[in-house]
């Protein structure tokens, strides 16, 4: 329930009759302004409201994180000054922002769009017009393009895309316009809690020493796969024919070892609850190599404890350095 608005004492008593209307600021035409209803930001889509809400002491502050940044838009926190304040937010679910790089799985092909499942309450939409055509020409999408959507992405394909904006019902609008976005093949997809992946400048990581692509999706989907040389999409059709003649085109065993090690490192770190960064994942994988831990045993108790201890030591050192600087 909303708290009642603060009562202002009115010496004249309640106003009688209709209040005089203010002069029209734009005499030529009426400018439609969205009413700023109390507690709701004008541009905030309604669908997002139940997800993030906190009682601000003066009303319900709507989830304005997507629009407000900086000091005012910090994450919901407990405010001890406002009595009766509490925080209600969902940690595990992904909290989308415009410009996020996410990894999703196609679940449905709808007219002129693909619906992707990302770790969110609603499915995201990738419009056909937001996707590069196979021949790379910028043109209007015709009915033939619409019929050939399946040749670009099929059901259950893993796709990397960028958040373009929100739709009116709160679901996400995606785009995959540049060459580095698109279908992900030859690798494995992991799921971790979304809050473990922080927003950084780079989410695509090409690890040259392993020849592996590592994509940390902000929604908690992590892709570890063979490195794909960014090239014309027309070549992908040859790849698909090659996939059918399987045995010759399996991922080479060395690359596969690196992929499995990195994937296990990511699984281990998410089980420990550490924030996932490329440096930490690579560091954990290299620690496992130097400690002669088998890839499979990386998920075992000994390496688990070893990693936790290593991280505790590192944080202790960091804290010690900070203190000595201060």
């Amino acid at each position, binding site marked *: 329930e909303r708290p009642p608005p603060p009562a202002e004492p009115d010496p004249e008593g309640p106003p009688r009759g209709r209040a005089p209307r203010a002069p029209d600021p734009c005499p030529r035409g009426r400018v439609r302004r969205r009413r700023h209803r109390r507690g709701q930001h004008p541009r905030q889509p309604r669908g997002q409201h139940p997800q993030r809400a906190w009682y601000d002491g003066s009303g319900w502050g709507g989830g304005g994180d997507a629009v407000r940044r900086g000091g005012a838009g910090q994450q919901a926190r407990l405010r001890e000054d406002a009595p009766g304040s509490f925080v209600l937010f969902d940690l595990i679910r992904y909290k989308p922002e415009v410009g996020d790089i996410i990894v999703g799985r196609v679940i449905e092909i709808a007219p002129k769009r693909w619906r992707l499942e990302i770790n969110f309450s609603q499915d995201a939409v990738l419009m056909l017009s937001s996707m590069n055509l196979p021949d790379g020409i910028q043109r209007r999408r015709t009915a033939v393009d619409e019929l050939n959507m399946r040749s670009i992405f099929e059901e259950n394909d893993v796709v990397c895309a960028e958040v373009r904006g929100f739709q009116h019902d709160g679901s996400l609008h995606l785009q995959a316009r540049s060459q580095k976005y698109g279908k992900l093949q030859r690798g494995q997809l992991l799921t971790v809690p979304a809050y473990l992946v922080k927003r950084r400048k780079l989410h695509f990581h090409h690890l040259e020493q392993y020849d592996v692509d590592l994509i940390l999706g902000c929604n908690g989907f992590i892709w570890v796969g063979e490195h794909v040389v960014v090239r014309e999409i027309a070549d992908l059709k040859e790849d698909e024919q090659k996939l059918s003649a399987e045995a010759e085109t399996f991922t080479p065993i060395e690359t596969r070892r690196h992929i499995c090690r990195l994937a296990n490192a990511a699984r281990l770190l998410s089980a420990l609850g550490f924030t996932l960064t490329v440096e930490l994942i690579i560091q954990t994988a290299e620690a496992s190599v130097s400690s002669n831990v088998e890839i499979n045993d990386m998920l*075992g108790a000994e390496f688990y404890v070893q990693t936790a201890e290593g991280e505790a030591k590192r944080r202790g050192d960091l804290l010690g350095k900070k203190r000595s600087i201060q």
Partner: protein
Amino acid sequence: LISGDLNLDSTLPSKLPPPPVFRSSAAPPPQGSPASRRARDDTMVGLSEGEKHFIRGGIAQDLRADGRRRLQFRALTVETGIIPQANGSARVRMGATEVIASVKAELGKPTILHPDKGKVSIYVDCSPTAAPMFEGRGSEELSAELSVGLQRCLLGGKSGAGAAIDLSSLIVVEGKACWDLYIDGLVVSSDGNLLDALAAAIKVALSDTGIPKVNVSLNNETDGEPEVDISDEEFLQFDTSGVPVIITLTKVGKHYIVDATSEEESQMSSAVSVSVNSHGQICGLTKRGGAGLDPSVIFDMISVAKNVSQRFYTLLESAFAAAEAVADE
């Protein structure tokens, strides 16, 4: 390895290849890896062609998605006595698969055909927490399949001969009173290899079971029913050395894997579950999946399962010993 696939036009070799060499993996009971799949509204999560290709390649190259070899098990954890009201219970975790088995004993009347034997019934249920499709009646087919598979392995023939548990030890008064054992399995979290996990859980639960001792007073037989006095103090433990475990071999492409995750199971052409006891004898055999298998392939799978079961027994025993140590503390 020989493949029974029909689309191979090469001739089959004349003798079976030798069984593969195993690495010993004496892993201590560790944390299970977090589940990397998520449940959807209607079916299990799908996999893209690229991911399927990756899984098949991993199995062909002997390096699966989480780094295991083809014949290596996931981390196995065991807890006993988790259901205090039951006579025996156990929870088994293999990676992300988690199952609970409970054994309850009640006094009943033996059947007229076998007045000197007790009764055992096994039933498996899949909880909706494992997958949304298990809600309501969605899990009936899978539960029935698992129950029947376990019954075939553990209960022996119609006359009760060859059962894993000695049914004559369940008798209280011949012809009048016997113990009925109700073994219930619950699938809490499903990530493949349910049959193996359930069989292991039942074996551990039976080891944990204590049947109360009964004192029968024979003088009061006016109504034909002898008086039985169930003691709360003394308990009889079962001898579970004869209880077998089940090893499921999943065939993907030309190779077999043990302890498949649900992603790997989605790629299987067929799966053979072999129930082996500690003496190396086969107690039951189930084949799932539509693809046909050459008989030599089945024999090869049986011999591989026998070899693997030795390792599984040691794994299970060390996990059980660890669980007992924790329980004693």
